[in-house]
């Protein structure tokens, strides 16, 4: 049977949200292949996660509890996913396009002799199954076909909704029969304990550019972000100037974000930056240069001095949100 296998993600004993849109992608794909959606949960103590994911309109959940899977390693997860895919007759293996999905699925693809598509944003039948995916940081979209019998896909989860909850599917233990590898070791995972949401996950992002002139001036960006419960970002120019840390960088060589609301403050709008944020639903640009290219993509533009506008805007929003 042409089944679809979804690799679930979890953290601190809870299903990660990115798994849900991946299930939707799998349901759409299974409708085209005529197969079932199966889910694989790897970890140690995954019973609750398996029970949770079973509610989302899937046919079966396979969970493996083993000290080998206690901490994520591509070297153990990849062979386990390969084994599960072969056991259930999966012709499509899908995972979220998260850092874990991106890390492990290419290893799986090579072992299954499968072609792989990264960051799928759509699946459809057009004389055979085709996928759509972005290139050049979203400046180009392509339609691709995978010619191998087994296809491995990471899913851009912002492009799919979460599935509806339904009756719980059967949950079954899975034994990968693996020993710990002798050539790779997990050392630590340092979770960022921030009050702010993750950049790639946030509904609101407030980003600052070189026009802010110093790292200290980013404080007003943080104040606006905190007022809206959003994340803080920066342009590459601001990062290169040392005003903001690297992991705040939004752009082609940084992070790609698609929040509901994006504020570009004192950012001119270089192609490199636009590539990372133009998928945002609503874009607000605040810049003193009325000719800045950012206004060409902004839904709402405010021309003026960010040092006056942002604090005043933050104060007014405090009374509203």
């Amino acid at each position, binding site marked *: 049977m042409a089944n679809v296998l979804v690799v679930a993600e979890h*953290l601190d004993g809870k299903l990660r949200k990115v798994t849900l849109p991946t299930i939707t992608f799998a349901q759409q794909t299974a409708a085209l292949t005529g197969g079932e959606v199966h889910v694989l949960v790897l970890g140690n103590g995954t019973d609750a996660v398996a029970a949770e994911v079973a509610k989302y309109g899937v046919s079966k959940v396979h969970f493996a509890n083993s000290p080998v899977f206690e901490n994520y390693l*591509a070297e153990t997860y*990849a062979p386990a996913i390969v084994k599960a895919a072969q056991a259930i007759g999966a012709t499509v293996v899908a995972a979220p396009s998260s*850092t*874990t999905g*991106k*890390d492990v*699925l*290419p*290893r*799986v*693809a*090579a072992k299954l002799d*499968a*072609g*792989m598509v990264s960051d799928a944003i759509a699946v459809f039948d057009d004389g055979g199954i085709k996928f759509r995916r*972005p*290139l*050049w940081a979203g*400046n*180009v*979209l*392509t*339609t*691709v*076909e995978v*010619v191998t019998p087994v296809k491995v896909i990471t899913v851009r989860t912002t492009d799919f909704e979460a599935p509806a909850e339904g009756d719980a599917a059967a949950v079954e233990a899975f034994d990968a029969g693996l020993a710990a590898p*002798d*050539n*790779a*070791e*997990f*050392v*630590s*995972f*340092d979770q*960022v304990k921030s009050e702010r949401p993750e950049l*790639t996950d946030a509904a609101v992002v407030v980003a600052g550019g070189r026009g802010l002139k110093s790292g200290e001036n980013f404080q007003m960006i943080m104040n606006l972000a905190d007022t809206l419960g959003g994340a803080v970002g920066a342009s590459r120019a601001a990062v290169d100037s040392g005003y903001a840390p*690297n992991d705040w*960088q939004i752009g*082609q*060589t*940084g992070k790609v974000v698609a929040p509901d*609301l994006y504020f570009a403050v004192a950012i001119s709008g270089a*192609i*490199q930056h636009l*590539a990372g944020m133009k998928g945002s639903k*609503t*874009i*607000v640009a605040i810049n003193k240069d009325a000719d800045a290219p950012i*206004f060409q*993509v902004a839904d*709402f*533009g*405010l*021309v003026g001095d960010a040092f006056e*506008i942002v604090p005043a805007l933050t104060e*007014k*929003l405090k009374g509203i*949100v």
Partner: protein
Amino acid sequence: MKILTTVKRVTDPDMKVKIKPDQSGVVTDGVEYKMNSFDEYGVEEAIKLKEAHGGEIVVVSVGPSSATKEIRTAMAMGADRGILVETDAELDSDAVARVLAEVVRRESPDIIVMGKQAVDSDRNQTGQILASYLDYPQATFAYSLEVADGWATVGREVDGGTATKRVKLPAIITADLRLNEPRYASLPGIMKAKRKPLETLSPSDLGVDIANKVNVLLFEAPEEREAGEIVEDIDTLIDRLKNKAKVL
């Protein structure tokens, strides 16, 4: 220690990409090319490893003859010799990884450091597929790297924080932002690079069939955003966000 690093020739990410009228690809006439920016981090890290541990850096590119320019750039930065596996075909990540696996088998490096992804095809697969074919461990999205006693300790950029992983050499490391600050090629470096050895091979010299597993059928431009409204003041902006965009 012998270090292998890879470079891909890509379109300048600061230029706007144009799609051909027949949607078969992107316009390449008049386009400027440069080294994939993530590969710059990989090359820089290879040089840092050589500075710390001694040895040799081999820089490899799989691509058209014009990619010798990026190989020379890496040599001008500090790589010792180059290998171009020449092909004009557009390869998928799997084909590139199969070619690189043969180069690795020939060269037997202690470590392979490469960019986490190319900024044109954005696939983020080649390093991991290469590791899988070689049965090597991998550490992707590296922001820090230390090598001692035959193991690499790698700080990795992952969702929700950072992770640290140890991998036994030989291993594949893929470079993320923050790993280092790539150096510029100096003028003496550029002069020296011209005399460094550069071997050109074909995929068939390596015995690799470069047939793709994934074919790109169609290139399209995403829907263009249109310029919106310039608002007068903060109150109007808040009104629009509340009542028009309904995001507040």
